C-alpha cells in the first residue's frame, strides 16, 4: 500500500517537471478522439462541419477537460506553487527598485538588532560554559554604599560552614603576579588565587595533570599552580612535559601540577593565565574588615536563587548581630554568576542600545509594511480584473504571499550576514579597548532567538501589509472593481489612513532613536569636555603592588615609597611626583562611614558616607587640585605626630558651614583616635564616569600614616608622559628587580581609551542615520505614490486655474502634518528616555527641550527635502496630457 502510494507520488512528481511533453501528448490524444468521433458522424452522412460540431457536443468542453486531466495526473499544489514562485520572482525582478529597498530594509533592521542582542547576550545574559552553568551564583557583600562588594575572609568562612543552599562555595581573588622560570627575566601574568574546591564548584577537570587537593589551600603545603590552556600553548607550545616543572611566581617557587581545559576561559574572568591556591591563613578566621574574597558557589539541586538569598539574608543578620563592629548593616547578595560583574551603568547602556536596536527593527518592519501596502495598492485594478475573470481568492493571494515571503527571506538572510559582521566588528573594537585594560577577548555567537524574532516580524510585516489590498479587492464586487480605471483610483479614506499611520509611526520612532542618540552623544561630549577639577594632561601613571615577605612590615613599604619618590623626582622632565591609592579617572576612593566630632553620634546606618583616599605629599600639586584652605600634607611626619586629614570643599561646607574647618576632627570608627582636618581642597570629578560617585564627600589621608602596599605613582612632566615609561621601569628595578610595573602610560590616554562613550556614540550614530534614512524613504514613497494617484486631479485643478505652487504646497502639506505629529510624539518619548538614563547615569547632563526643538527643525528640513521631489513632480503635471491619459 505504501509502495503504491509512493509510486503514485513519484509518477505525479516527475510529471510536474515533464510538463511540455505530457501536455503535447494530452492534446494529441484528445484531438485523436475528436477526429475518430468526427469520422463516425461523417460516415453516418453528416456534412464535415456538422460532424465536427456533433463530435464536440458529444465530447464536452475540451479546455475544461484538459484542466481536469492536468489536475488528475500531476500534483496540482506543487504546480501552482512553482507557478506562484516564478510569477513572484518575475514581479520582483520587474521592479528592482522596490525589491532592493525592501530587502535592504529588512536586512538592516534584522542585522542591527541581531548584532546588538547577540552582544548583550554575550555580556549579560549567557550562562557560564560549565556543566549546569546556570546553577553557578556569585555571592556579594552588601553594605550601605554598595551591593557588589567582596567578602571579608572570616565572613566567608562562616558562610561556608553554615550555608545549606550550596553544594560548593569557593573563594577566589583576581590579580597579577611576576612569573619567571629559573634564571629567566620576570614577566607580568594575570591569574586567580582560589580556594581548593574552586574547580569542584565550577565542575571543571584539568585536561592534563590534576586539580588542587582539598588541603592545598592550607598553610604550610608546597606551592602548586595550574596553567590555563592558552597560556600553556603560548608559553610552552602545548608541551605535556611542563607537569612537575618549577617556576617562580612572585619570587616563590611553584610546581606546575596541571593544565585547564580551553573551555575554562571565558568572559567574566578577565585574562586568566594561572590558578594558584588561595591560602587560608589562621588569622583569616577573625578578619572581618578586609572584603577582598570574591565568592562563587554552586546551588544545591532543587534550590532556587531566591531560596539561597533568603538563607543568606538570615545568616547576614546573625553575623551583623554577632559582630556589630564590622558587620552592622551589612549583608549578602546572591546573583547569577554570569554577567554579575557588569555594573548598573553598563547594564543600562546595553539596555539602551538594545532598546534602540529594537526600535530600528520596528522602523524597518513598518517601512516594509508601507512599501508592501503601496505596491499592492497600485496593483488593485489588476486584482479586480483577475477576480472578474474568475480567479479564486486563494489563486489571487498565493503569488502575493510567495512574493512577500521571498522579500522577507532574502532580507533576513542578508540581515544575518550583516548582524554577524557587525557583532564581530563591535566585539573586535571592544577587544582593542579591553586589551589595554587587561581583559580577555570574547566571541559573539549569533543570538538565534532574536534572529528568529526579527525574521518572524519581517514576514508578518511583509505578508500582512502585502495581502491587505488584495484581500479587499477580492471582496469587492466585480462591477465596482471594474469601474475603477487607472486614473480614477484614488486611495480610499481607510487605505490612506493606514498609509499615513505607517509613515507617522516611522517618523515618531526614528525621532526617538535619533534624538536619544544625539542626546547621549551631546551629554557624553559634555561629560568628557567639562572641567573635572584636576588636570589630566602631562601626567604619567603606573600601578605597583608590594607583596611577599620583603614587604611584610609597614616600614618596608614606607621605605620603598620614599625611595621610589626620590628616584622618580630626579628623572629628566619630571616636575612633581606623588603616590596615591586612587586616581579620579575610574573608581575614586573607598566609601566608608565617618563620625564628625561635635555632631551628635548617629546610629551606624545613619552616619555620613565619605570616600577615603590615601595620598602622599604633593598629590594635589601633581594633579593640580587647588588647596583652598590650610596646607597640603608635609613630606615627613615625625613619629608620634597626630593623625591628619584633608577634606574637599563640599564636605567642609556641609559639616562645618560658616566655620573654619581647619582644626575640626573626625574619625572612621569609635575605636580609633580622632583625625584633625588640616586643609580643604577643591572638589574633583571622576573623569568620564557617567554614574554619580557613591559619596560627594572626600577625605584624603596621608599614606605615611596609613601605609598601603597597592598604589599608583603619578608624575607631572613637561615632556610627553608616555616617554617616561622606560625611565620609571628602571627606577623601580633599581629598588626591586622583581617588581612588575602595571598599567603604565599617559593618564589622558589611559582614561580616554578605557572610556566606552566613543564606541557607544558610534553605535548610536549609526542607528540614528539608519532609522532616519528609513523614515525619509517612507515619507518619500508615500508622497510619490499619493502624487501619482492624484495626477488627474492635479490636471483638473491646473486646468481650472490652480498655480503649480498651489499643487506643490498641497503635496508638501501632507508631509508637514505627518512630521509635526510624528516628530512631536518622538521628541516627547526621547525626553522620557533621557530622564530614565539620567536616573541611572546622573553625571550625564542631557540637552533640554530647546535642543529637541532645534533637532525637530533639522528633521523637518530633511523631511521637507524628501517631500520636495514628489511635490515638484506633481506641480509639473501637464493638464492636457493628464486629462487625456485614459
Amino acid at each position: 500500500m505504501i509502495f503504491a502510494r509512493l509510486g503514485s507520488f513519484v509518477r505525479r512528481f516527475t510529471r510536474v517537471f515533464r510538463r511540455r511533453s505530457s501536455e503535447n501528448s494530452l492534446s494529441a490524444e484528445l484531438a485523436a478522439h475528436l477526429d475518430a468521433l468526427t469520422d463516425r458522424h461523417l460516415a453516418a452522412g453528416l456534412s464535415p462541419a456538422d460532424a465536427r460540431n456533433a463530435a464536440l457536443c458529444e465530447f464536452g468542453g475540451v479546455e475544461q477537460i484538459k484542466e481536469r486531466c492536468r489536475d488528475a495526473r500531476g500534483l496540482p499544489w506543487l504546480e501552482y506553487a512553482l507557478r506562484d514562485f516564478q510569477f513572484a520572482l518575475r514581479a520582483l525582478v520587474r521592479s528592482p527598485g522596490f525589491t532592493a529597498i525592501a530587502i535592504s530594509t529588512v536586512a538592516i533592521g534584522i542585522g542591527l538588532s541581531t548584532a546588538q542582542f547577540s552582544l548583550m547576550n554575550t555580556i549579560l545574559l549567557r550562562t557560564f560554559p560549565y556543566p549546569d552553568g546556570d546553577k553557578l551564583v556569585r555571592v556579594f557583600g552588601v553594605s550601605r554604599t554598595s551591593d557588589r562588594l567582596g567578602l571579608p575572609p572570616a565572613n566567608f568562612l562562616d558562610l561556608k560552614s553554615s550555608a545549606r543552599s550550596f553544594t560548593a562555595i569557593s573563594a577566589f581573588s583576581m590579580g597579577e603576579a611576576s612569573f619567571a622560570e629559573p634564571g629567566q627575566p620576570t614577566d607580568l601574568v594575570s591569574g586567580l588565587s582560589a580556594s581548593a574546591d574552586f574547580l569542584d564548584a565550577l565542575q571543571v577537570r584539568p585536561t592534563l595533570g590534576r586539580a588542587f587537593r582539598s588541603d592545598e589551600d592550607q598553610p604550610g603545603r608546597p606551592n602548586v599552580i595550574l596553567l590555563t590552556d592558552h597560556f600553556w600553548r603560548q608559553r610552552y607550545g602545548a608541551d605535556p612535559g611542563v607537569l612537575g616543572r618549577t617556576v617562580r611566581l612572585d619570587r616563590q617557587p611553584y610546581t606546575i601540577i596541571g593544565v585547564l581545559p580551553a573551555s575554562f576561559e571565558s568572559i567574566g574572568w578577565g585574562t586568566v593565565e594561572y590558578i594558584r591556591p588561595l591560602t587560608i591563613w589562621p588569622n583569616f578566621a577573625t578578619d572581618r574588615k578586609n572584603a577582598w574574597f570574591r565568592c562563587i558557589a554552586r546551588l544545591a539541586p532543587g534550590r532556587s536563587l531566591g531560596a539561597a538569598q533568603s538563607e543568606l539574608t538570615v545568616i547576614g543578620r546573625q553575623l551583623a548581630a554577632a559582630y556589630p563592629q564590622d558587620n552592622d548593616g551589612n549583608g549578602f547578595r546572591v546573583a547569577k554568576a554570569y554577567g554579575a560583574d557588569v555594573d548598573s551603568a553598563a547594564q543600562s547602556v546595553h539596555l539602551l542600545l538594545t532598546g534602540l536596536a529594537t526600535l530600528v527593527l520596528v522602523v524597518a518592519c513598518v517601512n516594509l509594511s508601507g512599501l508592501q501596502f503601496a505596491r499592492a495598492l497600485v496593483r488593485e485594478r489588476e486584482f479586480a480584473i483577475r477576480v472578474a475573470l474568475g480567479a479564486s481568492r486563494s489563486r489571487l493571494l498565493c503569488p502575493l504571499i510567495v512574493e512577500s515571503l521571498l522579500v522577507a527571506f532574502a532580507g533576513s538572510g542578508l540581515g544575518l550576514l550583516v548582524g554577524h559582521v557587525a557583532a564581530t566588528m563591535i566585539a573586535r573594537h571592544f577587544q582593542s579597548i579591553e586589551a589595554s585594560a587587561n581583559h580577555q577577548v570574547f566571541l559573539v555567537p549569533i543570538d538565534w532567538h532574536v534572529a528568529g524574532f526579527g525574521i518572524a516580524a519581517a514576514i508578518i510585516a511583509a505578508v500582512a501589509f502585502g495581502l491587505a489590498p488584495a484581500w479587499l479587492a477580492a471582496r469587492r464586487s466585480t462591477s465596482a472593481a471594474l469601474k475603477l480605471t487607472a486614473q480614477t483610483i484614488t486611495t480610499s479614506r481607510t487605505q490612506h489612513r493606514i498609509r499615513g499611520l505607517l509613515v507617522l509611526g516611522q517618523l515618531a520612532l526614528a525621532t526617538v532613536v535619533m534624538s536619544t542618540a544625539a542626546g547621549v552623544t551631546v551629554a557624553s561630549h559634555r561629560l568628557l569636555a567639562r572641567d573635572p577639577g584636576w588636570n589630566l594632561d602631562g601626567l604619567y601613571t603606573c600601578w605597583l603592588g608590594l607583596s611577599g615577605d620583603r614587604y611584610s612590615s609597614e616600614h618596608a613599604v614606607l621605605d620603598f615609597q620614599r625611595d621610589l619618590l626620590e628616584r622618580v623626582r630626579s628623572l629628566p622632565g619630571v616636575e612633581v611626583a606623588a603616590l596615591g591609592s586612587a586616581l579620579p579617572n575610574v573608581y575614586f576612593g573607598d566609601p566608608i562611614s565617618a563620625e564628625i566630632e561635635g555632631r551628635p553620634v548617629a546610629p551606624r546606618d545613619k552616619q555620613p558616607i565619605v570616600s577615603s583616599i590615601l595620598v602622599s605629599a604633593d598629590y594635589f600639586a601633581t594633579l593640580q587640585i587647588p588647596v583652598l584652605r590650610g596646607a597640603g600634607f608635609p613630606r615627613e611626619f615625625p613619629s608620634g605626630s597626630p593623625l591628619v586629614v584633608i577634606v574637599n570643599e563640599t564636605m567642609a561646607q556641609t559639616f562645618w558651614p560658616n566655620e573654619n574647618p581647619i582644626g575640626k576632627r573626625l574619625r572612621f570608627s569609635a575605636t580609633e583616635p580622632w583625625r584633625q582636618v588640616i586643609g580643604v581642597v577643591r572638589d574633583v570629578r571622576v573623569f568620564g564616569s557617567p554614574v554619580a560617585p557613591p559619596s560627594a564627600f572626600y577625605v584624603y589621608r596621608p599614606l605615611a600614616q596609613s601605609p598601603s602596599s597597592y598604589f599608583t605613582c603619578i608624575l607631572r612632566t613637561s615632556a610627553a608622559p608616555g616617554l617616561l615609561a622606560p625611565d620609571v621601569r628602571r627606577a623601580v628595578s633599581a629598588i626591586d628587580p622583581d617588581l612588575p610595573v602595571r598599567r603604565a602610560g599617559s593618564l589622558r590616554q589611559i582614561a580616554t581609551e578605557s572610556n566606552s562613550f566613543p564606541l557607544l556614540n558610534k553605535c548610536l550614530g549609526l542607528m540614528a542615520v539608519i532609522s532616519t534614512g528609513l523614515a525619509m524613504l517612507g515619507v518619500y514613497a508615500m508622497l510619490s505614490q499619493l502624487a501619482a494617484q492624484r495626477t488627474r486631479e492635479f490636471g483638473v485643478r491646473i486646468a481650472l486655474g490652480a498655480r503649480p505652487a498651489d499643487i506643490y504646497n498641497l503635496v508638501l502639506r501632507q508631509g508637514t502634518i505627518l512630521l509635526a505629529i510624528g516628530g512631536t510624539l518622538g521628541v516627547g518619548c526621547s525626553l522620557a528616555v533621557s530622564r530614565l538614563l539620567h536616573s541611572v547615569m546622573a553625571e550625564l547632563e542631557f540637552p533640554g527641550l530647546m535642543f529637541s526643538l532645534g533637532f525637530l527643525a533639522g528633521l523637518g528640513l530633511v523631511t521637507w527635502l524628501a517631500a520636495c521631489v514628489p511635490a515638484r513632480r506633481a506641480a509639473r503635471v501637464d493638464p492636457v496630457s493628464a486629462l487625456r491619459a485614459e
Partner: protein
Amino acid sequence: MAKEKSDLIYGTLEMLVLKALQAGPRHGLGIADRIHLVSQDVLRVEQGSLYPALYRLESDGLVKAEWGVSENNRKARYYELTAAGRVRLTAEQAHWERIAGAVNLVMKRAGNIP
C-alpha cells in the same frame, strides 16, 4: 474532483473503465463504446469525462498507456490494465456486488413489512 454525469452512479466510472479494459487494451473512444454497448445503451459516458479518470488511474499505476494505431488507421493512445489494476478491479467488483445486492434487498423487501 469533478462530478460525473447523472446517468452514471457517482464514483463508479473508474470501476467501469477498469472493467472495460479487462478483456484487453483499448483507446479512450473504445472504452466509451464498450461501456455504452455492454450496458445496452443505459450508461452513456460523456466522452470527455473519461480522460481525467484515465489519467488518474494511470498516475495511480492501475493502468498503463502506449501510443498505437487504431482500427481506422489513426494514432490512438491504448490503455492496458496493470497487475495492480487487476487486483483493484477484483476488489472494486466484490465491493460493488455486496453494496448492489444489499441495495436490491432493501428495495425488494423493506416495503413489505407492516
